[in-house]
């Protein structure tokens, strides 16, 4: 049961059947296409989740091959395997037709595969040239040959038509420039395959155009580029072929020109909504009003109205601003707004502590870095926000603490051996329930959820969904930020779709479909 992926409208095996026929045709013409890298039957399991399921993929020299799919489709896993960071559970790699195995990142690099991750692998204090030639710095008589290194760096940069002085420290460059340095480094390594993971997430429009130009010129230089992104407009601009992954399975690979956005989106999300749509809800009073919220460069003039008993969804891809809205409301980001009113009272929230005091609850999108207190027990993780309430004289009433924790453990069905169990021993799904319990224990009026089922197994997911239903039924107001489409459709009665820091449109009722959300989210 746990090994089966979420199957959708087109069962995977049917798609594979169709693909097989099409592939036979492809194989006949493949060799004439100079395939550099090929992957067959790539599979990767994690406890409770099948991240990649028999994926086939091939890359030709000089082509830009985009890999597209939404969150959880398996893109990151595939990238990590290509980089040699993760090992596949099954599957074969072929480099120039010969089988090859990557035991570690060094192997992958030796094979000519360079991966540019979202978190750069650069050394901020060192110069651009040094970063490009890190650990391979040219030397003369034991000293670094600066002249030669800067020259070669400049050549590498020129090749990409990048105008950066290789002598400056990387830290002085903008994010976009740093990314270009990473690319230059890959080329200097004589990479034959360059994999880019969401390369334009932090770039401005002009920088994006520049990057796409460079990607095209890389292809012209006979480098194979794997371009992983969910920004469809860019994909269409630059890709020769497009592969779509969905729920860990390979859905479709085709020449870009024969695909259009509609087909792409359908392939990306076309699945039966296993969880269905959200139930009917009775809405109460308006409980939260936000007018013209601005968060640094990430969010522009967003206005929100939230009622009791409703779940308002904030949908959008990474960098769209949806998550930043939630963080700002909870006081984790500097923001300005014309007005933020909660239950009639104007709010000025600049840190989590007064957010909680104003009866806002929050479940962060990354529990590992911002949520869990790893050395503490389950019980202590739940009670951390309400310790003042549990006071008896000047110490904590441990009976009441236990009671409170037990109440929520039961309510959310957290599976553990005891309330005093260390939180890091629990599974992802149970940990997330504890995060939820913490927010609920604080008796919040408005619940801010960011990616609430990230890293959560199927069973726990369903339980969390039912719980959210129950919560809103009893009057809670929920602001749900999620990049998982089925989730947002299952839970939210209204969805604001974000892209580039703005709310594009509000969808509700009949028009609220995965395709519609995705179409809006991928608009630049």
């Amino acid at each position, binding site marked *: 049961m746990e090994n089966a992926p979420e199957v959708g409208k087109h069962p995977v095996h049917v798609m594979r059947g169709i693909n097989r026929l099409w592939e036979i045709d492809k194989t006949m013409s493949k060799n004439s296409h100079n395939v550099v890298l090929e992957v067959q039957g790539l599979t990767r399991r994690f406890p409770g989740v099948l991240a990649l399921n028999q994926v086939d993929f091939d890359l030709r020299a000089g082509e830009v091959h985009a890999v597209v799919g939404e969150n959880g489709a398996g893109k990151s896993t595939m990238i990590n395997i290509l980089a040699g960071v993760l090992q596949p559970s099954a599957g074969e790699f072929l480099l120039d037709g010969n089988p090859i195995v990557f035991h570690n990142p060094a192997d992958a690099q030796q094979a000519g595969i360079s991966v540019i991750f979202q978190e750069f692998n650069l050394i901020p204090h060192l110069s651009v040239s040094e970063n490009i030639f890190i650990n391979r710095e040219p030397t003369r008589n034991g000293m670094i040959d600066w002249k030669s290194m800067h020259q070669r760096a400049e050549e590498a940069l020129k090749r990409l038509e990048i105008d950066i002085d290789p002598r400056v420290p990387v830290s002085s460059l903008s994010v976009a420039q740093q990314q270009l340095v990473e690319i230059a480094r890959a080329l200097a390594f004589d990479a034959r395959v360059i994999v880019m993971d969401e390369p334009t997430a932090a770039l401005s429009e002009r920088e994006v155009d520049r990057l796409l130009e460079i990607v095209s010129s890389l292809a012209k230089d006979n480098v194979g580029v794997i371009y992983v992104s969910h920004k469809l407009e860019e994909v269409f601009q630059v890709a020769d072929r497009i592969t779509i992954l969905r729920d860990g399975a390979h859905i479709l690979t085709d020449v870009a020109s024969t695909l259009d956005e509609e087909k792409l989106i359908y392939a990306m999300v076309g699945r039966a909504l296993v969880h269905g749509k959200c139930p009917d809800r009775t809405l109460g009073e308006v409980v939260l009003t936000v007018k013209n919220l601005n968060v640094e460069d990430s969010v522009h003039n967003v206005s929100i109205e939230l009622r009791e008993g409703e779940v308002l969804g904030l949908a959008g891809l990474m960098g769209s601003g949806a998550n930043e809205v939630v963080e700002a409301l909870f006081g984790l980001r500097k923001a300005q707004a014309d007005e933020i009113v909660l239950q009639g009272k104007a709010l000025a929230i600049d840190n989590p502590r007064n957010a909680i005091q104003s009866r806002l609850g929050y479940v962060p999108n990354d529990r590992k870095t911002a949520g869990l207190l790893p*050395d503490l027990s389950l019980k202590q993780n739940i009670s*951390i926000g309400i310790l003042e309430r549990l006071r008896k004289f000047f110490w904590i009433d441990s009976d009441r603490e236990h009671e409170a924790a037990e109440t929520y453990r039961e309510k959310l069905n957290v599976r553990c051996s005891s309330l005093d169990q260390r939180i890091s021993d629990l599974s992802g799904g149970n940990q997330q329930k504890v995060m939820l319990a913490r927010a609920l224990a604080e008796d919040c009026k408005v619940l801010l959820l960011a990616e609430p089922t990230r890293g959560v197994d199927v069973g726990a997911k369903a339980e969390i969904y039912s719980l959210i239903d129950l919560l809103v039924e009893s009057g809670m107001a929920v602001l749900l930020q999620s990049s998982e489409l089925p989730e947002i459709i299952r839970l939210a009665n209204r969805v604001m779709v974000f892209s580039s820091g703005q709310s594009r449109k509000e969808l509700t009722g009949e028009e609220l479909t995965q395709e519609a959300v995705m179409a809006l989210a991928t608009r630049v």
Partner: protein
Amino acid sequence: MSVANQTEETSLSKNLDWDVLWERYGIAVVLIIGWIFAYFFVPKFSNPDNMLNVIRQSAFVGCAAVGMTVAIISGTFDLSVGSTLALSAYLGVMVVSRTENIPIAMLVTVLVAMAVGAVNGFLITRVKIPAFITTLGMLFIVRGLSFIISKGGEPVRYNGKAFTWWGNGSLFGIPTPFLVLVICALAAWFILTRTAFGRYVFSIGTNSNAAKVAGVPVDSTTSWIFIVVGLFTGVSAFLIGSRLYSAGPGLEPGFELNVIAAVVLGGTRLAGGRGSMLGTVAACILYATMGNVLNLLHADAFFQRVAVGLVLLLALSIEGIRQRMFERASRQISTAE
């Protein structure tokens, strides 16, 4: 593969539990074994006066170590405690020599030390100078202050019986300083495990970002932590002044590093998030015991120093090696998939 409800880490969690046990009780166990060994095999150790003296000795570093334990659990440490010790002891002894009033002297000692802590807290949370540098700078400043106040380092002396009883006397046969230590340790442990403040200390140590998001008042808690360090350092100062009948700026050189060593040896690791007050007390007793045993065995006095450092390194190497084994094992799991 494994059960769906378990993370990759749980298959290795059994190893982790051993580590937790070692951290919490390891040194206490080593101490007990050490004492049994010393009792039977080291001549003159079993002399009651000797054993009591060992316990007495442990308290002088011990009280300050109690405070340092709190700091290290929260992920930080305080290098200025040695200088604070000297300054507050000097002022305390001076007050008692002038006023012959013990409670006032105690109060002054402790308050002076707490004031230093408050300054540390302010510099760290408001001016945002990293704790290492702040407390290092304060080490110099406070030491300078104690020289200035003592007009060049002239120690102040007082040997009133009521005063010196604290460091040299006993109650019901147990050395007074040790009783004070036990009370301090119990009080601190109570605060750490039963109060909101204590909970906040742990949460900042285990993940300060998550603590902030969870609404923990990180800045004010941190300030109070340094004041608490001052408090317990002041207690040590009073006891030492009483023990020595005097106090001067040159008091206990290297004190801060001894205190930190004792806390870390006792099981509270610099990374923060968890700790053992029992371990701190046991480590202090262990150090005192080692000194005593080596003396009785007529070992080179200097060998003691080597032993002190060696024990610390040994204790932490055990964990380091376990960590390497853990890393090797977890690498295998992800490739075996």
